[in-house]
């Protein structure tokens, strides 16, 4: 084989192997992660996930619950907690104006307003899904068992998006059956504040 051809084949092989290795490393770094399209309004905000900076557009994120914050000079910071799963192909952050420059930007074009509303709708939809994800127990409530006897319902905790459980219309054994029923459905009541409105406590530990 001609010396020039050999050198050409060798260089080609090295470049090819380099590309293959790069591709494999990129693929491996994405193992177990989910492609999520991150969008902000206005464009170009800085987004952090669990305190570390992440880019915009398609990013590969480990599944699970993450705390995000999007910020841009002249705009308010949008903090959101999103649970990333296969059902979260896109997440959005919408910042409010916090300076005359930002207000000017908003007034510059009606398409900005449309984009903002689009992303706000997506964010609200995600918040709803997030609520149901964080409080999956609401999918099986309210529930009553006259034989128990018990009724289980839920209420909303003040100041956060969590629910608490209300076990009522019950007796001492019914209350234990209600707690067991929740476990049988796959929801550990230990993760929720549980109230028993029919129960009159005989003893209390001072003020906590």
């Amino acid at each position, binding site marked *: 084989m001609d010396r020039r051809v050999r050198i050409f084949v060798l260089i080609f*092989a090295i470049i*090819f*192997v380099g590309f*293959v*290795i790069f591709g*494999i*490393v990129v693929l*491996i*770094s994405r*193992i*177990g*992660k989910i492609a999520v399209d991150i969008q902000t309004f206005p464009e170009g905000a800085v987004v952090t996930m669990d305190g570390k900076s992440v880019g915009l557009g398609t990013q590969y994120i*480990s599944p699970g619950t993450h705390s995000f914050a999007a910020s841009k000079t002249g705009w308010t910071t949008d903090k959101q907690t999103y649970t990333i799963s296969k059902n979260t192909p896109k997440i959005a952050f919408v910042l409010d104006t916090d300076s005359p420059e930002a207000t000017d930007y908003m007034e510059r074009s009606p398409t900005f307003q449309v984009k903002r509303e689009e992303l706000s709708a997506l964010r609200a939809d995600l918040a709803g899904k997030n609520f149901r994800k964080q409080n999956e127990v609401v999918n099986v409530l309210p529930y009553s068992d006259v034989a128990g006897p018990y009724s289980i319902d839920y209420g909303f*905790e003040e100041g956060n998006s*969590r629910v*608490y459980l209300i076990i009522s219309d019950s*007796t*001492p054994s019914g*209350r234990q059956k209600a*707690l067991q029923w929740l476990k049988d459905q796959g929801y550990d*009541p*230990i*993760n*929720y*504040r*549980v109230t*028993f409105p*029919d*129960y*009159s*406590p*005989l*003893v*209390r*530990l*001072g003020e*906590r």
Partner: protein
Amino acid sequence: MKRVIALLVIIILVIGAVVFVFSRTIVSFEQKNIKSIEITELDSGKKVSSFLNDSSAFLVKNTKYKVSYVGIDGYANGSRVFNSSDEMPIKLVPYFSKEKLLSLLAADSNTIHNSISRTLPDLLTNFSLAKEGLLQFGDWYVALYRYKGGYNLSSDSLRIVAKKVEGKWKPVSSPEIFLNSVSYPNIPKDVLEKANAL
């Protein structure tokens, strides 16, 4: 032709080595009072043998494993599930063994009962101690109290948790039908679980 085949073999070996190295990560364990550890894949239950030394292993990235450990004398055996991409090192801290906790309870029970009756005088008037136990390093106490009177709509058994802080026992929960981690965020979940299971 031979050279081309040799080149292809080298390329395949290099790619294989790259895939192997980049798909794995070194997982290290911080161990205290542990005799031995064993790692299994959580999904398949397959035992892992890729130990680099006594306290680290070369595991597939982003995969869930279970590490089971055997404690030295006086310490319990246990296990912990971890993801190979979690922050390292993975701390393995075995609690005291059942026998050691029982002997500590025997020594401390009067002090604990006195502290509870001092803080909650009505508890012992209406309820009697049914079950109790020490947990973790003998610094958590859980107990179940049964109602002494006849059956009524509020005659539930009650659970209580106490903690030893600077040598003194103090109840850290109200007597409750069911203890939850939202109302008691400072009590470890496994302590609440044990109290609820009494």
